[in-house]
């Protein structure tokens, strides 16, 4: 049974360590496997490791699965795990962050290993699903022992165009950006729910074309589908929209670090340093309207920077700030800006669902309380080229979206909320440099607290502070929408990942 689908982006490489990007990992997750796997609902389940247990706060023992074979027929064993881990740390690898969670791996026997972490790490396994395991021998034969780097010597790496994993599917043919065909790996160690024997993936850049291809019956599934097209899909016969909230949170940030805003008519001081101004902003924006009109009712407005699917999500804090223009005006006046001020909003226009539209809506809502926003909407490469740390956070007011790679709030805190800190690589995506020492302490503690109850408490406290200080303007969890033909059933994961294991073709 063949399953044909299209995605907006393409599979830039077959090397599981080459790029830390969700689509690539999700796709290769069908070819390669980690010690643990994501279940249908992002829950962690045993993968190449049958079981694991904490020996000391910083050491774990993993029992590896026996009798697993790579597509090439090689046996899977401890050496492969160690090798793969080392590979993630190799020059050119983009998995250094994951690899970095591990200090050392020692081989007990062929199917037992002990993993050592630099610090106590309660959520180590959270980081393992996408630490994909390659075969040592195979890699050495084809001297692909280093990850395919985007630069320098070992570009053109064998692993870039070939794959040899333990997963249920293996690469039949791969033409970058044109078509990739996978077929079922018969010797897979476990039988799977799905009945697909062949998968055909084509990247289709333009949304309308994608949708057309689905409706015309050429494809069994396409994603993402623009929210405004859902109704159309449901009306059309033979296809329907499969939707759900994504684990990604869209939010707007303020530059609270600088003493004067880069892009504003207020000189000599930084209005965003004033909590009242930030409060005024959040109260001026009508999240419901955005949900109804722009997201066609599909988004879930939020008050928290972490989505419900994320480990450590805090229900109580998830209620959005209330929409209240009057209050907003009052606050502005109080803060000394009775008739507002000007500021530039940086916004991507091809990164998140309807990102540009959201920015426009926010712009006009703020206009109503007297704040004149100049909207600078750009394609993602230019946008990120401007706002990120590498270009010195060149922004005053920006829209961003975040899914924690580890599916744990700790990542949210340490990337978005703690003070910018170059040395320790923390707060790198805290583009506005919201900074509160207390929160930093808490985050540090959360990182190493193994007692779940204590941990949860600290998480709540941290997020409470952020929310009270209006560190950010959370917008919503954006929806995922897949267009699926009635011929097939698929499982939609909240990280927008498609797992062929759960695809069945009627």
């Amino acid at each position, binding site marked *: 049974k063949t399953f044909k689908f299209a995605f907006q982006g393409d599979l830039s*490489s077959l090397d599981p360590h080459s790029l830390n990007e969700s689509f690539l990992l999700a796709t290769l997750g069908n070819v390669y496997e980690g010690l643990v796997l994501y279940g249908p609902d992002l829950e962690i389940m045993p993968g190449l490791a049958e079981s694991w247990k904490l020996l000391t706060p910083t050491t774990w023992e993993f029992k590896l699965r026996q009798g697993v074979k790579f597509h090439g027929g090689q046996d899977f064993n401890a050496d492969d795990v160690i090798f793969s881990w080392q590979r993630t740390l190799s020059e050119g690898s983009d998995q250094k962050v994951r690899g970095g969670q591990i200090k050392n791996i020692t081989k007990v026997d062929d199917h037992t290993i002990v993993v050592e972490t630099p610090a106590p790490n309660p959520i180590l396994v959270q980081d393992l699903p996408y630490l994909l395991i390659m075969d040592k021998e195979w890699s050495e034969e084809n001297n692909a022992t280093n990850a395919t780097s*985007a630069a320098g010597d070992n570009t053109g790496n064998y692993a870039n165009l070939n794959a040899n994993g333990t997963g249920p599917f293996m690469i039949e043919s791969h033409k970058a950006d044109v078509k990739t065909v996978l077929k079922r790996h018969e010797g897979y160690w476990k039988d799977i729910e799905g009945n697909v024997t062949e998968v055909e993936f084509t990247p289709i*850049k333009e949304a309308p074309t994608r949708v*057309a*291809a689905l409706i*015309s019956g050429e494809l069994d599934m396409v994603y993402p589908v623009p929210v405004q097209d859902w109704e159309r899909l449901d009306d059309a016969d033979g296809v329907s929209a499969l939707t759900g909230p994504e684990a990604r949170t869209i939010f707007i940030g303020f530059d609270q670090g600088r003493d004067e805003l880069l892009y504003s008519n207020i000189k000599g001081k930084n209005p965003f340093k004033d909590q009242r101004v930030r409060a005024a902003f959040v109260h001026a924006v009508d999240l419901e309207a955005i949900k109804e009109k722009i997201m066609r009712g599909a988004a879930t407005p939020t008050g928290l920077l972490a989505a419900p699917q994320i480990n450590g999500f805090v229900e109580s804090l998830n209620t959005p700030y209330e929409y209240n223009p009057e209050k907003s005006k009052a606050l502005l006046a109080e803060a000394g800006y009775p008739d507002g001020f000007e500021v530039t909003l940086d916004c991507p226009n091809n990164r998140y669902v309807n990102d540009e539209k959201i920015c426009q809506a926010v712009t006009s809502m703020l206009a109503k309380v007297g704040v004149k926003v100049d909207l600078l909407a750009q394609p993602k*490469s230019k946008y990120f080229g401007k706002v990120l740390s590498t270009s010195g956070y060149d922004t005053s007011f920006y829209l961003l979206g975040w899914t924690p790679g580890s599916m744990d709030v700790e990542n949210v805190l340490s990337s978005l909320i703690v003070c910018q800190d170059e040395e320790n690589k923390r707060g790198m995506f805290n583009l506005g440099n919201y900074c509160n020492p207390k929160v930093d302490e808490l985050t540090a503690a959360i990182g190493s607290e193994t007692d779940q109850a204590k941990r949860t408490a600290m998480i709540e406290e941290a997020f409470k502070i952020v929310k009270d200080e209006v560190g950010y303007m959370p917008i919503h969890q954006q929806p995922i929408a897949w267009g699926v033909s009635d011929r097939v059933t698929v499982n939609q994961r909240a990280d927008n990942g498609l797992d062929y294991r759960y695809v069945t073709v009627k």
Partner: protein
Amino acid sequence: MISFILKRLVQSVIVMLTVALIAFSMFRFVGDPINNMVGQDTSRADREALTERLGLNDPFIVQFGRFALNAAQGDFGFSYKFRQPVNKLILERMSATLELSFVSAVLALAIGIPAGVYTALKKKGFLSRGIMTLSLVGVSLPTFLIGILLILLFGVVLRWLPTFGRGDVVAIGGWTTGFLTVSGLKSLILPSITLALFQMTLIMRLVRAEMLEVLRTDFIKFARARGLPDRAVHFKHALKNTLVPVITITGLQLGSLIAFAIITESVFQWPGMGLLFIQAISDVDIPIMAAYLVLIAFFFVIINMVVDILYYAVDPRLRADDA
């Protein structure tokens, strides 16, 4: 003639170098490639290391020099995104684009020229007015819109033709062709029409405009006086005298078809060079962009050379002043 061609080839090298130079002076405005090459969690240190390794911190003149040197040895580097040799990527795509632009160019000429002649002859005619007007609707709507509408009609509603891609292709040596399979041919139809529409209008109107003038010349009058049949008068004598501008424009258009059929290729997800290029722009895949622009420069020099040669072929009066 040979000397002429040689001269051009020499010039083409200079042109390509200049293009590369300008290209490199411009890349930093296109965006920051790094973000497309690493995941969000990648630390700044690693990002900067990568930037360093790619030599993106060097002044553009240095980057250019490096590029030029390698290019001289036929090495255009590796794509940042695909981590594959750029030559390979571009070559893979070339056949798709060339076939598409070939077909649509043929369409444009095959329909545009006769239509132009007709509308010129039947200046006030009802039909020709109709043609003139309709053709304009074609150009005044964005290619993207036209593409989508065609897809909706023939792909979704009628389901006659594929909505995207190139269908099955047959590989002959390095060249993959869609001409040999049914699905390949079917998938050619919509994109080539979309592309041809614009060229067609342009060529048609050019031919018409020129014809109107030529038809009034004495030699046409004399040709009639000799009793030549209309076909001969119109196509052999009149049309040939209108060709110089038509050739020019056709050349240019063909060039831009090959180079920048970007919108059409992305609407139909046609795996051609245009698509590769626009992707490269949005991913800031500098090696691809650089190599591509240089290649295109070469294309244009060649095409325009052919055009100039055609001038001489068409109009003997121009040969005198070429020694």
